[in-house]
């Protein structure tokens, strides 16, 4: 089963495998999402750690990528596919 960034639990780290925006319903939104994710610093082969979740519905997420913390909504995190191996 494919692992997505939204599947991580707080404190868990995994490596980004690829991007897939096909699960996103809104086509216009999905169109440049991959570029936006790349621009802010998500990239294949990098480790992401889930740091925090928002107070309502565990949304948005705050993740550590490189030396920075990035916030994104679950809908956006759904486009990031992770490697199977998860470290906690």
């Amino acid at each position, binding site marked *: 089963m494919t692992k997505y960034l939204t599947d991580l639990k707080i404190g868990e780290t995994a490596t980004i495998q690829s991007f897939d925006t096909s699960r996103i319903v*809104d086509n*216009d*939104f999905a169109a*440049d*999402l991959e*570029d*936006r*994710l*790349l*621009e*802010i*610093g998500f*990239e294949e082969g990098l480790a992401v750690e889930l*740091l*925090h*979740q*928002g*107070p*309502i*519905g*565990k*949304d*948005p997420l*705050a993740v*550590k990528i*490189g*030396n*920075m*913390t*990035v*916030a*994104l*909504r679950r*809908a*956006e995190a759904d486009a990031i596919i992770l490697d199977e191996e998860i470290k906690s």
Partner: protein
Amino acid sequence: MNPLNAALIGAPNSGKSSLFNSLTGSHQKVANYPGVTVERRSGTVTTEGGHQIKIIDLPGIYSLNDRSLDEKVSREIITGVHENEAQPEVLICVINASNIRVHLRLVLELKALGLPMIVALNMHDLATRDGIEIDVSRLSEELRLPVITTIAVRKSGVGALKEFLDRDVSAFSKTSNTLSETTTRALQKEAGRITKLVQIAEGGHHKMTRILDGVVLHPLAGPIIFFAMLFFMFQAVFSWAEAPMDMIEGSFAILGEVVATYIPDNWFRGFIQDGLIAGVGSVLVFLPQIIILFAFILVLEASGYMARAAFIMDKLMAKVGLNGRAFIPLLSSFACAIPGIMATRTIANHRDRITTIMIAPLMTCSARLPVYTLMIAAFIPNDTVMGYFGLQGMVFFALYMAGIVSAIIVAAVMKKTITKGTLQPFLMELPKYQVPRIGHILLGLWQRVRAFLRRAGTIILYAAIALWALTLYPNAPKDAPKDAPEADIYYSFAGMIGRTLQHIFAPLGFNWEISIALVPGMAAREVAVSALGTVYALQGTEDQVAESLATVLQSAWPLSTALAFLAWFVYAPQCLATLATARRETNSWGWTAFMAGYLFGLAYLIAFIVNVSAKALMA
């Protein structure tokens, strides 16, 4: 020699704005690019060698993809196709030393455009503290660009950059494009390659940030801290501002009296005392609240907390289609919609920004409080409901809630209709926490206060003078019977307007006195109270004047009228300064007309419903 035109460019959180502040100090101007809502910041630097350099601070962007207005304006300026802005002769690209992998991408993208460029490796001190080590000469070699380390928060930290700019312009040779491909992915790959080469030590996550976020973004503690902070901020805005506001009001009253003793009692004294001095006073009286509010916002922004506040509020705001960042501007609007609308500049997406501006006036601003207080004191009995809750307090609360609920509905409707568009990602870096620099805070505060005085101040002042004239002229006709019930204001232009408006407002239960008071109330909402005072005080016998306005209104208005009047004030765009600010910030008469139109429409509709149903219930 003409001054050199330089442009600062960099990603959000690169420390670009701090660098700009340190470079230019107080020699800077903030305006808007004509036709768009993008802020234009420019300034001048004089180097040791006596060269004048003009610097524009381009908006913080990740790329030049034209997805946002910021990106579009930046690209147009850099490529020299912008209508009003000359193409810069040299670019200073600011990159954060803690995050070069991401920020180098923009450097490579800009480089491909071929302008002379200097790279400012910023926040070098902070990166070193976090254990990040960068081979600066290797970076320069790989990029084939000059790289200068800077520490934006210190004046001394920009010395090397100034020195570099001191050299002859011809020293900046054109860069050549070394990449065949400029897709995001290709650029990213190249940035990654360079980062691997020049980053000797990767360092770790900023410890303090990690610890603080553990508390501030905690699912339970986070919101508690957030709301406690909001509560404190509001307390500060209302209670700290009280004393200086009283002082300002007091000194303007004294000034008015002083003028009265020196100028004979004629129209000129009236103009100076009631028009000019009262007008300036009514502007300046808001200044303490605005200074305190903006000081809080600037400190929260500079410390890095603002991004966390957006994180906490995002889910709630997303329910009406807005971004977490819209929360603070709306919050500011509870003090005054003008700074609130000005604060929407932090919202990158144009449609989200417009929606936020449109609903900002629905937040109950402090200028409505005198009106609410008067009406509640006069018409709502000081009873308790269910043995505990004060009825007056509950009405107050209901008025606030009416504004908030309406704003939510209006935003939701707008996002489904006129500001409909592609969903905007929330995606945002949560910057490291920093201790704000007092100098930069003061500079920001001064710029905002100046903007408020210029934009709101001039319009309130003109409006106050115009309305003064309208309420005074023409005088009551000489042949009017001595015992006529009507006051002088009844015969004035304001009175004529009011009497005409009365026909329109009759279905709301408004009499001609209210209709007249609404006219000067356009300058600022709370002026409606003193205008009512004028209307009734001038009209009644001496005994009636002696009575408080609340008592007068109690006997003069039915309850249904009072409630409709309150409902009117929840919605009506009774503030020219807000409309003027909306015009400036949206850069569109269309949106301004929309704001005025929908607010008047709602005000009329709701006041009508309140009047009719209150009458029916009492019958």
